């Protein structure tokens, strides 16, 4: 009996490990920035380059940081989701326009709609490095104290918004 059970047990263990491996996303790298203060930035605003935005201006509010670029294909698929979220007026959405041409970026927003309260330009990708950005689009949720509480890598779906983002935002808004 053991003769037949041993290979079966081995097979089951291997199958479980392989199935886990198949379902994990190797691109989903846990960010060390969760529960850490959001890195500071001081970047020109896309709609008016003479203005700069820094992190301290957002203190006291729950806000989303969405890293996007006009050259990024998945950002295009994600865009309607943010438009829809913006219409709810639940939370401020700050765009980080990552390594992009300002004219192309402005055109993109004019064409597809602008869900961002403000977008800032990170043409050299330095703020991107500070936020550990490695695959656009990426979305961070920052709380009232300026602490990063959640990070989503890759395009956000409406399901993600309803199941994860909205409950989290409401919870963070209730915090003092």
């Amino acid at each position, binding site marked *: 009996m053991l003769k037949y059970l041993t290979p079966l047990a081995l097979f089951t263990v291997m199958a479980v490990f392989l199935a886990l491996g198949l379902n994990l996303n*190797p*691109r989903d*790298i*846990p*960010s*060390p*920035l969760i529960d850490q203060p959001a890195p500071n930035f001081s970047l020109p605003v896309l709609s008016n380059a003479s203005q700069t935005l820094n992190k301290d201006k957002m203190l006291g509010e729950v806000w989303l940081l969405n890293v996007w670029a006009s050259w990024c294909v998945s950002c295009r698929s994600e865009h309607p989701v943010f438009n829809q979220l913006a219409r709810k007026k639940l939370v401020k959405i700050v765009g980080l326009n990552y*390594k992009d041409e300002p004219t192309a970026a402005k055109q993109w927003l004019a064409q597809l709609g602008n869900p961002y309260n403000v977008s800032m330009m990170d043409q*050299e*990708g*330095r703020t*991107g*490095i*500070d*936020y*550990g950005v*490695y*695959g656009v689009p990426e979305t961070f949720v920052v709380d009232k104290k300026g602490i990063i509480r959640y990070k989503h890598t890759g395009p956000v779906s409406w399901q993600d918004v309803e199941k994860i983002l909205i409950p989290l935002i409401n919870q963070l808004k209730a915090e003092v």
Partner: protein
Amino acid sequence: MKLFQIIVLLALSLNCFAAVEYKKFANPEQEEAYKILIDELRCLVCQNQTIADSNAELAQDLRRQVYEMLQQGKSKDEIAEFMTQRYGDFVLYNPPFKAKTGLLWIGPIVFLVIGLVMLFLFSRKKKLADRGDVSDAELMEKEQQKAKVRALLREGE
């Protein structure tokens, strides 16, 4: 003639136009540190390449970051720390040993030990069997099988 054509075409291939990054260093130690660092940092876009191997935009930016920090007089450890704070241990090809990376470091040794134990157990069993130290029940079973085979052979004749 054909060979000549091939050589000309190869010489014109795109590889020849691949950009070479030229960087100036203050001293050989700094250059050495740069080479070691870019060989130890992972490009997070094309995950199985170092930032030295990869030409992804992020890899270029990270190389620039490493270069600039070296120019500012930062040490290798400080730069590795800077990268880990932003991208996690995953960015290092040679991650430090801690609770989170323990399985990574110990895993191979554990599997080696399991393999050796199995090898030892199986070879001992086989040796015992060869020496004839088999149980009566197994002998009986073998005899029965032999009888069956003989019967089958006889049928076939």
